[in-house]
Each structure stands twice: as C-alpha cells, then as structure tokens.
C-alpha cells in the first residue's frame, strides 16, 4: 500500500496474486483429475463417453455436414438411430474445434487424447467461472475460495476425470458461466450481458440436457424478484434479452427443436416472460394513470389474466398441444414413481435417490459451510443473493432425489462455502485496528506465499496465504510484546491484544485444519473412487500385487477381429455404446434408451426359454449374444444381478410372457443353483452365464458373487459358445444357423450325443 514491491502498486500486486492463485487452482484442478491416466492409460471411460468419443471421431473424419445428418444404422438394429438429431452436439463440436485448432497450429494430436483431456481442461475453466461468480456476488476472496473448492470438490470430479468424456464435463462450466453472466446482466441491466447469457445458454443447450435447469431457475429468479416487489428496468432488459435470444438459439439444436414452445418444462420461462411484460406494462400505466384508475385496472386486469392464463394452459395441456411432464420429470418429485412406472429409468444406478453419506463423501467440509453461506446471503439479500438462495434450495432438493444431480449442487455449494469462508477470513484475519504492523505483515506474508508456495495444492495456495498471514501477524505480535523497551502501558496493551488475537488465531487454526483435511479427503476420494475407467478393472491380490483385469477389451477386440463386420451383437443395453465404440459391431440396444419396446424385447430374449429366445433372436437377425458374468471373479455388476431389471422392463411391455415372480424360487429367493425356479433355470441368461461354468469350478463350485452353489447341469443347444474371456467376465455365444434338415437343435444335439471332452476348445 505504501511501497511499491517490484515496481508494482498494491492493487497491481493483488491482481497479480489473484492471477497466480487462479492459475495454480487451474493446475491443481487439472492435475488431480489425471490419476486414471497415470494408473491405467489414456482411455475413454465407462459407457456414454464411448458414444461421445465415437461420434466425435465421426465428426472429425467426415465433417460437420455429414455429422449433422448422420443416420447410424449400426445402432438400434434394425430401427437405426438418427444420431445427428438425437444428441447434444456441444461436446463433439468442442473437441473437434480444439482438434482442428491444434492441427492448424501444426500440433498433431490424437483425437482420443483431446477427448480424454477435455474434461480436466474444462474443469480449470469452471474454476475460473466460479471465481467470477463468487466475485460477482461477494468479492475476490470469496471467488478465489469458491474456485479452489470447485477445483477439487469430488462431487464435480466424479464426472470430469480424464477419460470421462461426457456432456457434464463441459456443461458444468457452461452452467456456472451462464449464471455468472446472468447475475451480471441483472446487476447492470445490460442488454450486452443479457445477450452473452443467451449465447452461453445456447452453448449449454447444445451440450447437455441439464439446460432445463437454467431455463427454469432464471425465470424463477425473475419471478421471485417480481414477487418481492423488486421489479426494475434492469431486470426487464436482462430477462427479455436473454429469453428471446436464448429460446430462439436453443431451437436451432435439432434435439431440442420446438420443445421450448410446447413442453411443460419450458412453460415456466414463457409464462415468466409474459408476466414480466405485464408488470412492465403496469409500471408504465402507473406512471401515466391516476392512482384510483390504476388500482381498478390492476384488479380486474389481474383477475381476467389469471383466469385466461390458467384456462388456456389447462385447455392446451388437455388437448395435448403442450406435452405433459415426462416421466423423468415426475421421478424428480416422487422417488418411487420411476420404480413403478418406468423401470428403465429406475434401473440406472445414478438415478437412485441419494443416500445421506453421499453428500459428505462428495462435498465433505463444504456441506457444513453451505448453510452458513445461505445465512450470509440472507443477511445481504441483494438481487444476486436471491438467485443464490433459489439455486441452493432447488439444487439441494434435486440432489436428494437423484444421485447424479449432486453434480449441479456442487457449484452452488462451492460458491456458498466460498462466501461463508470469506466471511470467516474477513472477521478473523482482520488485525488492522490492533496492530499497526499488520498491513506490512499482510503484504510481506502474501509475497512469500506467492513465491514459496509449493504449487502442488490449489486451495492450499489460498490457505497457505491465509495461514502465513496469521503466522506473520502472530510473529509481529510476539515481536512487539517481547521488545525490551516496552512500557507498562504497552504490556497491558499487548496483553489485551493477546486476548483479542488468541480466539482469532484459534479459530483460524481450526479452519486451516479443516481445509487441510478437506484437501486430503478430496485427493483420496478422487484417487480411490473416481479414477477407475470401469472398462479396465484393477484388483489387488492378498500379497498386495496389482492385477489389471482387461476382459471387456479382450472380448470387444475378439469381436472386432473374428466376426463379420456386419454381425449383429445382442447384449443388455449397458454395453451398447462400448460394443459400438470398441468392437465396431451392430448392436440392438444401447445406452441411449429411446425405445423402451426394443429394450424390453432384448430383456424378453434374455428371460425366455431357449427356444423362444432362439426364435426371437433369429427374427432380429442376431448373430452373437454377449453376457457379462462375474461369478468367476466376484464382479457384482454382472448381468445376473441386473437380470431382475431386465425382467421388470420386459414385463412392462410383455406382461403375458414374462413374470417377475416366476424367477424367484419357492422360498422367494433369487437363487441360481439347483434350487432356482424353473423359469430362472430355463432362461437364456442363466444358461449363457452358467453354461460349462461347472467344468471350471468343479462339481462343488460356487458362484462368487451370489455365494450360491452352481447348478449341476446346464444344457444349451440353440447357441454355441464362441468366446469366453480370461476371467470369464464376458461370454460370447453364436446363434446357430437353422439346421439344414429342418430339425430342432435339440434333435441335432441328441443325435450327436453328449458333448465330450474332445469338443472343449482348450
């Protein structure tokens, strides 16, 4: 403040510091997401990312025009999928742009690496956007803290580690940045920022279905402000600009199309837009009409409008012009809804209601700071704070309904925690009145923090800074108190100072400890829970050695190399995207669960007896059937454990043919051994999983997942074992051709006699 350090004024120093801290936060945000690449390899994770990766490659190879009009005949055989019109192209276009940009600069990169590292890079951008948001609602300190938090919060890392090439990877950045722009446009009443909000909203629409959250939250904010009597021209300018431009832009995405004009999810925004015009008009009328006339006008006007509005909405909904709420939406309000009406949604683990420990697991310290942040927002309650509070409430509710919505909760939790933490810092790091040396100490404390800071740790940066500050002031304090020239008055003063400092130091030490633990927790969670590609598994044997289980890729590679390029592979929908991406074969169903009937048909094939399944499989031109079996390894996410969901989904469409109850045995157990129910034992899934498994596990073998005795005989005639991977995790069967003599395969097998050891390929 007084002096220039390195020729910089104090304000320049702070900007430099902020820049440096933000940079370090970005580095840490990227760095902590690279565990999976270091442990395994640069590989695309899980299921959906494989689709995004495949489409990105298509986009890069064939150009945008072909991508836009791409009809993928190898998915959903034989229905096909209009890929260009049923995806959010944001992430593919982003990757392709980066890829082409790098190529333009003569930096040859593999498109796979662009995809793998996209999410970590965008997480750095998210941190910066969060900083801006925090700065917008409070100050730079809160912004930096929020940025540091979001950089490492596991709730966000879970969807943005390297290789997790999913829509959410870029969508969270867009979400935060759109909200930041919105708040700024409301604060400034600027049409420019309103338009920018619309632009980023468009980007968000192109990237993730979660855009619905934005298009409901912003109108809600506007509505709340109007209800609070805080209508202003700034609000009018901001929302009108945003809504009109944003809606028109969002309609350019084929997947969204005309939805903003007729689906219930978008009606709130339209209604708020209309209401805003009315309120604006009322304000105008008030300025020209007399008080008496105005009141009369308002009363009748409101009544008529209300009746008309509700009537129109009801009428349009009843006539089906406005689509009623979709099932996914209902399941947001009633957690039991999906399980009864749409098993396909309920069958996905990330759609389950959140268990309480999850919040602590994913947010740790932040979940405690969150309410404090809300409290501080209530204290100030500007337009911006109203928004934060609304965002907090809704995100908190939704995250309780669905596990994966913790993702949308994380940014606001980080911002709120940043606000709370900044308030703590403000209160307990304020030594100005007591010590004249404090400002100097702050300056000198900041510099070593900047220079010496071991860059390993992002929010450590902020923390180190604060900690050094505290220590420095402490040092200054003890220095003065131990001065030999101290007078009696000074001694009492230092005692007094000691009493005021002590609680502050104690509180800060506490918080430092918590923040340190938070960082520790985040790194640990990231490394242990969120960095597995799930395509490749790792296991640790009792002696501590590391084993890589690569059965999935082994099987997909086998399919790729040993089957006809036109072969159709039937599997449960979970593996559809991976089959298409890694094996490059036609699939019947995949993770884009758009056709429930088709999925139910696959479920029915799996749940039917061998002959029915054979007939259905032939009808669908299936060449190979692939099942995931964990009984050898103890991999619990296998198809037998998912089987009940297949049965439920199949039963929803074919209630006459599939009945869930018949798959439980007499004691009501879900058994697989000799005590299994008849339907279970006859089902194709059971046969494909346990066929010849007994030969490996011995006569008294156990299934290591179910901990049950194996069935003694499993006969399979219509399907032929084609491949089984090293750990028996993936088993591939060929659907036999029709017999040339028109016999059933049972008759053929009977003639050929029992399978002898000579037929075993190994």
């Amino acid at each position: 403040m007084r002096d220039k350090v390195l020729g910089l004024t104090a304000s320049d120093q702070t900007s430099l510091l902020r820049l440096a801290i933000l940079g370090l936060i970005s580095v840490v945000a990227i760095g902590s997401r690279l565990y999976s690449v270091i442990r395994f390899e640069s590989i695309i994770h899980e299921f959906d990312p494989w689709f995004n990766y495949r489409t990105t490659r298509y986009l890069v190879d064939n150009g945008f025009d072909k991508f836009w009009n791409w009809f993928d005949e190898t998915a959903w055989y034989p229905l096909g999928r209009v890929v260009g019109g049923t995806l959010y192209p944001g992430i593919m276009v982003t990757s392709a742009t980066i890829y082409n940009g790098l190529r333009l600069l003569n930096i040859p990169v593999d498109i796979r690496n662009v995809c793998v590292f996209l999410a970590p890079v965008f997480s750095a951008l998210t941190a910066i956007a969060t900083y801006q948001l925090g700065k917008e609602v409070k100050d730079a300190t809160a912004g930096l803290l929020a940025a540091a938090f979001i950089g490492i919060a596991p709730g966000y890392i879970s969807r943005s580690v390297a290789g997790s090439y999913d829509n959410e990877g870029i969508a969270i950045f867009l979400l935060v940045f759109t909200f930041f722009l919105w708040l700024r446009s409301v604060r400034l009443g600027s049409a420019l920022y309103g338009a920018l909000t619309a632009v980023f909203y468009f980007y968000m629409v192109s990237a993730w279905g979660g855009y619905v959250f934005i298009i409901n939250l912003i109108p809600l904010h506007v509505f709340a402000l109007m209800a609070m009597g805080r209508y202003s021209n700034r609000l009018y300018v901001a929302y009108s600009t945003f809504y009109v431009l944003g809606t028109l832009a969002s309609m350019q995405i084929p997947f969204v199309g005309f939805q903003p004009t007729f689906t219930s999810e978008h009606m709130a925004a339209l209604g708020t837009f209309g209401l805003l015009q009315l309120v604006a008009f009322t304000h105008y009328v008030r300025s020209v009409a007399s008080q008496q006339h105005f009141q009369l006008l308002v009363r009748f006007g409101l009544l008529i409008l209300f009746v008309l509005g509700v009537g129109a909405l009801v009428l349009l909904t009843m006539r089906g012009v406005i689509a009623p709420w979709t099932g996914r939406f209902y399941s947001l309000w009633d957690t039991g809804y999906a399980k009864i009406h749409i098993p396909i949604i309920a069958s996905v683990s990330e759609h389950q209601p959140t268990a309480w420990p999850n919040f602590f697991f994913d947010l740790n310290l932040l979940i405690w700071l969150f309410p404090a942040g809300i409290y501080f927002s209530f204290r100030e309650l500007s337009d911006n704070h109203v928004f934060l509070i609304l965002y907090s409430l809704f995100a908190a509710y939704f995250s309780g309904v669905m596990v994966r919505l913790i993702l949308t909760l994380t940014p606001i939790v980080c911002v709120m925690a940043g606000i709370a933490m900044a308030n703590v810092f403000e209160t307990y790091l304020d030594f100005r009145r007591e010590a004249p040396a404090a400002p100097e100490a702050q300056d000198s404390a900041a510099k070593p923090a900047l220079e010496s800071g071991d860059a390993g740790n992002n929010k450590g940066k902020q923390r180190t800074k604060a900690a050094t500050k505290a220590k420095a002031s402490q040092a200054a304090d003890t220095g003065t108190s131990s001065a030999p020239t101290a007078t009696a008055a000074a001694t009492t003063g230092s005692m007094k100072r000691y009493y005021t400092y002590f609680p502050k130091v104690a509180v800060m030490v506490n918080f430092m400890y918590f923040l340190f633990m938070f960082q520790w927790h985040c790194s640990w969670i990231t490394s242990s829970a969120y960095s597995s590609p799930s395509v490749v598994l790792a296991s640790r044997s009792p002696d501590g050695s590391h084993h890589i289980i690569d059965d999935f890729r082994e099987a997909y590679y086998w399919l790729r190399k040993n089957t006809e390029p036109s072969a159709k592979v039937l599997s449960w929908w979970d593996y559809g995207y991976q089959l298409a991406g890694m094996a490059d074969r036609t699939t019947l169903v995949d993770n884009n669960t758009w056709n429930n009937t088709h999925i139910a048909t696959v479920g029915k094939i799996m749940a039917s007896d061998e002959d029915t399944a054979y007939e259905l499989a032939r009808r669908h031109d299936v060449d190979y059937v692939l099942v995931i079996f964990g009984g050898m390894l103890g991999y619990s996410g296998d198809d037998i454990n998912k089987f009940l969901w297949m049965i439920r989904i199949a039963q929803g469409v074919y209630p006459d043919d599939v009945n869930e109850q018949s798959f439980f045995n007499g004691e009501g157990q879900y058994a697989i051994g000799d005590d299994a129910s008849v339907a279970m034992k006859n089902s194709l899934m059971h046969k494909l999983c346990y066929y010849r498994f007994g030969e490996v596990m011995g006569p008294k073998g156990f299934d290591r997942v179910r901990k049950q005795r194996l069935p003694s005989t499993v006969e399979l005639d219509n399907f032929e074992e084609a491949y089984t991977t090293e750990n028996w995790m993936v088993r591939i069967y060929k659907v036999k051709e029709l017999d040339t003599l028109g016999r059933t395969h049972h008759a053929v097998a009977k003639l050929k006699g029992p399978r002898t050891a000579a037929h075993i390929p190994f």
Partner: protein
Amino acid sequence: MRLGALLGTLLAFSSACLPSTFARSVTGDRVLVLVPAVEAALHEYSVFLDSLERRGFDVSVRAAANSSVVLHTDGDRLYDHVALLAPAAKRLGAALSVQDFIDFVDTGGNMLVAASAALSDFQRRLAVQFGVEFDKRGTAVIDHSHYLRTKAPSNHTIVAASRLSNIPAVLSPPLLADEHRAIYFEGIAHSYDSQIPLLAPLLTGSRSTYSGSPATAERPSSKSTQEQLSGRSLGLVSVFQSRSNARVVFAGSTALFSDALISAEHSANGPFVTDISQWAFQEKAVLREIAHRHHLASAASSSSSSEQPDHYRVANVISYEIDLSVYHDDKWHPYIADDVQFEATMLDPYLRLTLNHTQSADSDAVATYHGDIKLPDRYGTFTFSVNYKRTGLSSIDVQDTVAIWPLRHDEYPRFLSAAYPYYAGSFVMVAGFLALCAAWLWNTEPAPKSSKPKSS
C-alpha cells in the same frame, strides 16, 4: 476309385462344352450305389443303372458291406450322389454313421434312399432325421383294389399306386397327365412329417391302400386303426430338399427301381424312376439366381451403369432386378413365372410386391425380373429379399441389408402452403416494426413536452 472320379469330372467338363443328348447333373457326376450284392444288383437294376450311365453319371456300384466305402476324405465329398438300395444292411461301408450321411447332405450331396419291408434300424434312424418315419418292421403296403394283377402274390403287396402329388418340378408332364398310370410298388409305408416344409410327399396311397402285416393279409381290427397308415397319409415316395438345396428321395420300395416292375405291363415305373432320380441328382428343376441389383430409379434412366448405393432416403423410388434361370434338359433356361415376389422387411414386412418378368438382353438363358418400388416412408435398416421357395424347385433366398436414411436437413420441403399465413405474419411484423421506428425517429410533433416522459 479316385482316378475314376477324376475321369468322371474330366468327362463332365468335356461334355459340358459339347452338345450332348443326355442330361447332366449340375452338382457333379459321381454316384455311389450301395447294394446288398454287386452282381445280383447289376442284374436286378440294370435298366435303372443303365439309364444313370446313359445320362452321363459315373456310377460306382458297391456292396453295402464293403468296408472301404467312405463318403468323405479330409472333409471333401467323394461322391455327389448316393443311392441306397440296400435296405436290410445293418451297417454301411466303413461303419458309416447317420451323422456321416447328414454331413454328406449338409455339404451338398444328394441321396436316393430305397427301403423295403426288411428295413434296418440304421436306415430308419437315418430317415427319421429327415422327418420320414417308416412303418413298423414286418409291415408292408397292401391294396386289395389296386395291385399288379399279372404276377402278383396273392396277398396283394405289389400295389399299383397312382396318386401322385402335383409337383411339376419333379414329375414330367406326360406322367402327370397320364390318367391310367400305374406305379408298381412293393415295400414299406412311411409317415411324413407335414410340419417340415422341406419335405413333400410325392406318391401316396390311394383310398384303399393301407399298411399292415402281409401274413394276415386282412384289414386289421379297428382297435389299431388309429396307428394305421392308410390312404393319403400313407407315404410311398417322399421328396426332401434341404436348406442347402441338397435333395433326398425316400422310396419305400427297392422293387420300384427293379427291372421286373419297370418292364411290367402298363407300368409307369420307368418314367417315374427317371423323374425322381433326375430330380434327386440335380438334373432338373435346379433354380438359380444369377445376379440381383437395385438402384435409384432416377439413376437408371440417366446412366446404365448405375451403382448400388449403400443407403437410400425415405420414400425413394428404386428399381430392383433379379436374374433367374432354371436347369433342365442339360441346359440353363430362363425361368418364367408370375409369382416372384420382392419383400422389404424391418421386423415386419413393409412391402411385398410381385416382380414383372422382362426379357433379358444379355443372355437367352436368363430371365430378368424387374420392379420399380417406392420405398416406405420409414427409416431404418431394411432387408430386401426375394425368398422364392416352391416345392421341388431349388429355393432362392436373396437378402440385402439396406439402410434407409431420413431426409437431410436441407431436403425437407421449404415453403409449405399451410404456413403462408405465418410467413405473411412475420413480414407484416417486420414492416410494422420498421414503420414504427421510422415514425418515432422522424416524427415532428408540435407538442414535444407531452411526449417527453414517454421517451425517457
């Protein structure tokens, strides 16, 4: 034996080039005839065997008990056709199993199986695999109304059968047209599985024919009539064509092929045996698809060498063509029919229409079937197929998997008449907006004070 086969093949090649007076098999000339005893058989079946030789076959007559007889070596067929005339043999050749014969048929070999009242278990088991179940041991086909009157035994087991199924692909027209035909049959009856579409009865019993024990020579008591084969359900000769178009004939009588019955009075055995052996050994009614193609109908008119696209758009008009020829009398002829159908299926059939026969310009041995087809207004992966299966003829199942894509984003109709009011509305809106702006900008109102609060 191998040398003989080689010579046979050479002969087949050379004679294929020359115009010959006798029919030849499409699939090959090597015939194995298994008989109980070679010398006796050469005498007994001389007419039949001679006719085979005359038709250009390389006939090897072997005793059934000859243990050097095998059907395959190293997975290659050694014969193209097998005639089993040794019904009583319990073991054939080098301990050939039922599976060996099935493999033989699977790999395209044809068989002619003749049975008799003394049919062995082995051949019963073989027949069952084809859906043919011979009647119990000791039974014979008996007909007290239609029997060979000249030298017949008194128990009427030489039946004069005349009920032929109307399968012109197998039976020649004179035989079918002959009202007074009598096919003499002495042997065992079989039941045919009518559930199997590959199997068809060719010669069945007439109303007075039944299967029973010839010793009693009487109609059995009504108690067992339910199991009794009689009438139309009593099969005498049945034809089977596998999915791989291999052909198998089951005849309940070895005597059918014998010189004695062929030369009997009013006997139609000669032409009948020739017909079924020609059919079984792929000398007639062999249908084949030479080529098929499809392309956009508009592309066809512009250039003759239009390429087959990898996908179409919804509601495209395409033209589909398939070339068929049929083999008989030693030559490929154009196959003329009015029931060749094209089908486009995606789980369910969307289109099924009859293709028109057109004269093929290229060759006089080929008939081209053509259809201009408007594809369904539905995208997805369709299977274009011509699935032509007629009893007796080789089956044709041609399938193409073709994707039908939705329209491109710029292929939709741009200006809809229904939307004109909206176009008009938007232009009126624009004009109105501009007019208002102009009015606002260049308005020179005399009283500027009243308008001031508005503008602020």
